[in-house]
C-alpha cells in the first residue's frame, strides 16, 4: 500500500485493514520498519547452541545464545513477528504460542529447551486467503481494538478449546467429575492468561463461543 493509497482510505477502511492484519498477526503501519535489532547482550561473547525444531510445519535449525527465549528466537531470528512481546514476564499472554499443540508463554522459556519440538505461531494457523476459523470469528465479532494482544488471544483460544475437548476442568468448573459445559464464565476463566488492554473482552468471548459452536477447529 502506497502512502497516497493509505490516505485515500476512509477511517473505517483503515480500521478494517488494521483489524484484519491484527487477526493475522502481521504489522500494518510498522511493516515498513526494519525488524527490531537483537537485544544487546551483557558480558563477553557467549558460546552458541544449536537447536533444531519445527516451526509452523517447517524444520528450522538455529544457532543461538542460550539466553534467547523462544519468543526472541521466533521474532528476531525467524522474523515471525506475529507473536508479541508485551510484558516479557508471563503476565500478559501476548507471546502465547503452541508447543506440541499446547499453549505456553514463549517469553518464559528458552529456545534451546525446544530441541525437536513442534511450534505453532499465529502465522502457522491461517493466512489472509485461508483464515483459521478462530481468526475469522475474531474478525466477525470485532474481537480487538489495537490488535496487539490478538495473535496471543487467538493461539491461546485455539489451544484452549482442545483442552476443553480433552475434558480438562477449570477453576470455575463446578463438578470435576462430569463433562464441561463451555459457559461464558468458563471461556473467561480459561482465557484469563491473555490480557487485553483495550478491554475487548465481550467480543473476544463472543468470537471464541462462535468458533467453538462452529465446530470447525
Amino acid at each position, binding site marked *: 500500500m502506497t502512502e497516497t493509497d493509505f490516505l485515500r482510505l476512509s477511517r473505517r477502511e483503515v480500521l478494517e485493514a488494521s483489524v484484519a492484519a491484527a487477526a493475522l498477526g502481521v504489522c500494518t503501519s510498522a511493516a515498513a520498519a526494519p525488524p527490531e535489532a537483537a537485544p544487546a*547482550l*551483557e*558480558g*563477553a561473547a*557467549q*558460546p552458541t*547452541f544449536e537447536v533444531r525444531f519445527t516451526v509452523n510445519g517447517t524444520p528450522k535449525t538455529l544457532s543461538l*545464545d*542460550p*539466553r534467547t*527465549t523462544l519468543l526472541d528466537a521466533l521474532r528476531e531470528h525467524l522474523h515471525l513477528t506475529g507473536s508479541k512481546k508485551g510484558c*516479557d*514476564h*508471563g503476565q500478559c*499472554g501476548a507471546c*502465547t504460542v503452541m508447543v506440541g499443540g*499446547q*499453549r*505456553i*508463554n514463549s*517469553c*518464559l*522459556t*528458552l529456545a*534451546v*529447551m525446544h*530441541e525437536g519440538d513442534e511450534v505453532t505461531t499465529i502465522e502457522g494457523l491461517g493466512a489472509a486467503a485461508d483464515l483459521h476459523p478462530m481468526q475469522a470469528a475474531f474478525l466477525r465479532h470485532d474481537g480487538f481494538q489495537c490488535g496487539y494482544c490478538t495473535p496471543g488471544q487467538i493461539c*491461546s483460544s485455539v*489451544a*484452549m478449546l482442545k*483442552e476443553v475437548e*480433552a*475434558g*480438562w*476442568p*477449570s*477453576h470455575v*468448573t463446578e463438578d*470435576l*467429575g462430569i463433562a464441561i459445559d463451555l459457559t461464558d464464565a468458563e471461556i*473467561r*476463566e*480459561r*482465557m*484469563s*492468561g*491473555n490480557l487485553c488492554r483495550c478491554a475487548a473482552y465481550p467480543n473476544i468471548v463472543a468470537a471464541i463461543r462462535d468458533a467453538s459452536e462452529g465446530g470447525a477447529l
Partner: protein
Amino acid sequence: MTPFTYERAIDAAAAARAVAERPDAAFIAGGTNLVDLMKLGVARPKHLVDVSRLKLDTIAESEDGGLFIGAQVKNSALAADARVRGAYPLLSRALLAGASGQLRNAASTGGNLLQRTRCPYFTNTATPCNKRSPGSGCSALGGFNRIHAVLGASDACIATHPSDMAVAMTALDAQVRTVTGDGATREIPMSGLYRDPAQGPEAETVLTHGELITAVRLPPPPPGRQVYRKVRDRASYAFALVSVAAVVDARDGQVLGGRLALGGVAHKPWRVSEAEQTLGAESRPEASFAAAADAALKGAHGYGANDFKIDLAKRTIRRTLADAAGVSS
C-alpha cells in the same frame, strides 16, 4: 541476563551430579519462575541443567492406594488427571486456582514447590532484601507489605510462599522424594521442606545444592470432603492473599475430624495441629470451625498493610470448613 552455558540432562542422578559439582549451576524445568528471575537479574546461574526431558513425567498408583507424581508432571496434567480429580480434588482445585492455562502447561510439579516469593523488593535489585542479598536488610518491614506474612515471619524476612499446589499437598501429607549429587535418595515430608526465615531467608528449603526433586508421593486421601478456597485481588490469574485447604469428615451434621492448611500467610503452607484437633472436639460445627480459625492464627502478627489478612484468614477458614462439612455458615 548473565551469560550461562546449558546442558540437557538425560537421567536424574546425572542431573543432580551436574548441579552439585558447580556452585553456580541451577536446574531448569518449566522455566516460568527461573527465566523470569534471570531476566530481572535476581537469579544469575552460570550453568543451567535442563531437567524438563527427564522421564519423571508420569503419575502412578502406589501400593498403599496413594499416588506417585513425577517431578516433571505439568501442573495442567496433574490438575486434569482423573485419579487426582477423583481422590484428591483439593489438589486439582489448588492447581486450577493458580496462574493461567499457559503457565500451568509449562510449570512442573518440582518447580512449583521451589518457586520463589513474589515480594516486590526481592524482584527489584535496587532495593535491600535479605533473601536476595543476605545482610542488606528487609525493605518490606517498613514498606509496602500488603501481600506479606502474618505467621512464622521474622525481622529478617516477612515474605510468603506463593504456591497454591504446595498448600494442598501439605494438607494431604505429601512427601517429597529427592536424589542428591552422590546418588543418595530421601523422602522429606511437605511439613519439613521449607526453612524458617529466622534461620536465614536466602535458603528457603532443606534441600542441598544439587538435590533434585524426583517425585511427590501422596498417601491415600484422608476421609472427608476436600475444599480449596483462594481469596485474591482479582477473580483469576492472581496470587493468593489468603487461601485455605480444608478436609472435613462430617456425618449427619457431626464433625468427626479434618485437615487445615493456609496459603498466602507465611513462608510455607501453614498447618497447625491444634487447629485440626478442635475439629470434632466441639459438638456444634460452627463452634469448632471458629475455634480452629483462632487456633490456626494463634500468634499472628501484621506489619501494617497486611493486618487485614488475620481477619480475612479466620473468616476464610470458617467459611471453607463449613463448605467442606456441608453446613451453611
